[in-house]
């Protein structure tokens, strides 16, 4: 039995961690650790959008999680200072049966929801029941990640047991999901959609107010279960969709941080003006922008056409050009470049579109197009979301790349609702810019979208070998064997160009140095509880 540590350790965690955090942020943590935290103050932040709803179980946007994460507890969490290490939050310890089919969690005593009621194992069960088996009329967008769970049991008020149908390599990662905030059972019993518009959490901060399009506020929870936390009196997000407004807010000191990302030019300008008053933490991102190819419509049913498209994209030049504009930087396959799971560069470069000799790739692309019956090239429609950063910048670069192999793409940006409707729901598209952003480098999270019938499989392809490999890797507890299966799956998708990866994202978190004790993880979803963050004196 394992107690309080990850049973399925990731293969190269130490190496990955070193590559994740830039030197400045690691140095900053060491500096902050030597200081005595100061109490008080309200952390002022800016954010680029309103949350669609307040229920994290039903949402997938930073605009939800960054606002509400400080209000809630989760069963487990990623260590704020050591991604991807998993530590407890509401759970103090956990044990995994040798057969990997039973996970037993001990719930911390003394946790109280903001309405004064105690958090018990029953609340954890009610929360996970809602996530895994949502009642009618309730959406749970991550329920597929818990398909291995047979049932959740509560032997006593302080114990939760997850019983599995088969061993799962990703269960702890999924239980550390920042989205799985714990709700009080009594409210869920009355209305499972209650938390779309209400907040009753047990996190370090209590909900204070929300005005759509303007502000979202939390105030210190004096009864928080971690002694002496949080340090802040509260936090306040100002909501503005305009990037220049958010950047100006940081420059003028009206806000201290933008947790998602700001364009490199703005970050440079802020740094130039404010000097040592601000710090920049640049991290890789568990997010990639690529192209969904609709495998069900001609001419994309022909693998030669699909391969030509991916061969015609010079990812290495794109990285140099797009990185300063958009943060799109790393060339990689289906798992994040530089992560534990990424395919070795030497193997990757043998796959279509990843070779470094672009002229050779373009010649091959033209040959394939001619062979497929398009010697004079072809015209395609590239649908996109009408969001500039990085969607449209990426598309504009790609279109001029494709022109070099004779592919004329008409760029058609759509309003968000119409874009989702066409690309995801109805399949009414040929090609579309497709983002893949998750909260952790977990193969289940990133590869589930390539499985037959997955709602995230925008390309609508079906490859039995991929389905089989996905299923096998999900149940493989040995990390090295799992990595082999993951890379094999990647190879099949990329060789057949079922999907076309673009570039992996990076983010630059710029914040005033008086905001202490925050380390940016490689995504904008985790480490948002703010319980250890404090504000230094001016």
């Amino acid at each position, binding site marked *: 039995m394992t107690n309080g540590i990850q049973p399925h350790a990731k293969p190269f965690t130490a190496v990955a961690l070193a590559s994740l955090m830039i030197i400045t942020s690691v140095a900053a943590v060491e500096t902050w650790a030597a200081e005595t935290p100061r109490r008080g103050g309200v952390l002022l932040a*800016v954010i680029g959008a*309103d949350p*669609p*709803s307040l229920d994290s179980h*039903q*949402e*997938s*946007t930073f605009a939800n999680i960054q606002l509400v994460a400080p209000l809630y507890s989760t069963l487990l969490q990623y260590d704020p200072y050591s991604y991807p290490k998993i530590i407890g939050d509401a759970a103090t310890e956990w044990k995994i049966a040798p057969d990997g089919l039973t996970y037993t969690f001990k719930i911390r005593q003394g946790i109280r929801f903001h309405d004064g009621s105690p958090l018990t194992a029953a609340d954890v069960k009610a929360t996970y029941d809602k996530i895994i088996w949502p009642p*009618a*009329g*309730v*959406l749970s*967008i991550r*329920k*597929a990640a818990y398909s291995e769970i047979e049932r959740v049991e509560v032997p006593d008020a302080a114990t939760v047991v997850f019983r599995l149908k088969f061993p799962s390599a990703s269960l702890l990662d999924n239980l550390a999901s920042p989205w799985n905030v714990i709700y009080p059972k009594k409210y869920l019993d009355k209305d499972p959609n209650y938390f*779309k*518009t209400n907040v009753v959490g047990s996190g370090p901060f209590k909900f204070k107010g929300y*005005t*759509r*399009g*303007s*502000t979202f506020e939390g105030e210190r929870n004096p009864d928080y279960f971690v002694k002496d936390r949080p340090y802040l009196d509260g936090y306040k997000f*100002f909501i*503005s*969709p*305009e990037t*220049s*407004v958010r950047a*100006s*807010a940081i*420059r*003028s*000191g*009206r*806000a201290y941080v933008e947790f998602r990302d700001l364009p490199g030019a703005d970050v440079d300008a802020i740094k130039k*003006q404010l000097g040592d008053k601000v710090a920049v933490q640049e991290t890789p991102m568990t997010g990639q922008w690529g192209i969904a190819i609709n495998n069900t419509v001609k001419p994309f049913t022909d693998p030669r056409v699909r391969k030509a498209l991916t061969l015609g994209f010079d990812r290495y030049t794109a990285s140099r050009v797009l990185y300063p504009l958009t943060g799109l930087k790393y060339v990689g396959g289906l798992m994040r470049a530089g992560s534990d799971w990424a395919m070795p560069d030497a193997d990757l470069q043998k796959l279509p579109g990843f070779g470094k000799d672009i002229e050779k790739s373009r010649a091959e692309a033209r040959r394939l197009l001619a062979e497929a019956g398009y010697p004079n090239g072809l015209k395609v429609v590239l649908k996109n979301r009408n969001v500039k950063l990085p969607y449209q910048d990426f598309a504009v670069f790609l279109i001029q790349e494709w022109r070099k192999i004779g592919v004329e793409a008409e760029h058609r940006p759509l*309003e*968000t*609702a*119409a874009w*989702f*409707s*066409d690309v*995801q*729901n109805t399949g009414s598209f040929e090609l579309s810019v497709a983002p893949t952003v998750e909260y952790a480098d977990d193969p289940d999270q990133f590869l589930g979208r390539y499985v037959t019938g997955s*709602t995230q499989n925008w390309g609508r392809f079906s490859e039995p070998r991929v389905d089989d490999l996905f299923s096998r890797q999900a149940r493989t507890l040995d990390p090295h064997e799992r990595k082999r299966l993951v890379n094999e799956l990647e190879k099949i998708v990329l060789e057949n160009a079922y999907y076309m990866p673009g570039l992996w994202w990076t983010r630059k978190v710029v914040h005033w140095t008086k905001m202490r004790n925050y380390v940016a993880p490689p995504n904008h979803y985790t480490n948002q509880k703010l319980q250890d963050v404090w504000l230094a004196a001016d």
Partner: protein
Amino acid sequence: MRTYLAKRLLLIVPTLLGAAALVFLIMRVIPGDVTLLIFGGDQASQVDPKQLAAMRHRLGLDQPLWVQFASWLWGVLRFDFGTSLWTGRPVIEELLVRLPLSLELAVLATIVSVLLAIPFGMLAAVRQDSWVDYVIRVVSIGGLAIPSFWVGILIILLLVIFFGWGPPLEFTPPWINPWANVQQMIWPVLTVGYRYAAVTTRMTRSTVLEVMREDYIRTAWAKGLRERAIVFRHAMKNAMLPVVTLIGTEFAFLIGGLVVTETVFTLNGVGRFVVDAVAHRDYPVVQALVFLIALSFVVVNLLIDLTYAWFDPRIRYR
């Protein structure tokens, strides 16, 4: 006059009905489904069709269009604009948060515009083709040519770069903290007021020039009246009819049309609310807002028509 007023007030009803019906239909034919968006947008296709159907039923979207429209109209008659599909809060509550800001911005920008445009427009006309006229024309054409949001971004950047200061990010009503309100509102008011003043200055100049060429003005000059008396007593009032019309329609536009300016200055006004609501297919909110904007246009137009009589006593209403 009374008959005229009654007629105009009665005409408001079909006008508003027409606008409401038009928006009602448009919102339902554009692509995108509010139920899918409520179910999470990018993950919506994971939703069971039964859940979607249940949600449509709950929202009344499975009813025939005319039933939905009639039900909404019945609510409007009772000042009940429904509940936002997105936030779950009554639309009227959401509106009351934003309306004071938009009204304040519209009123202040109008004041700035009138204070600048009428004197400068008249001065440019009276001193036609002098350097004064040229300066006023260049500045006003600049105001027309440069988008307000760009001026806004420039103002914020200049403040931030040269003074390390930016306007507050949250609206504070003047009755709560007048100084905080001034700090936030002065910049958008100047930005919007500049464009508004530019349009009005051009109109004032043109109409004053036209009036100054009328026979009765020539007679006034021939009588030996002083320039001030001719301009203010005889020309100004007659030149004001188109100017007042313009000011009125611009004012109504400002209530809901300042989307980008509101975004640039982080003002949580009606303009942004409209766009947000359209993007989220929040039908009750869009309908309420369009109704409000249409109402403001109708009321302002009525007021403009009524002021005509004051400016030109020859106008009689029947």
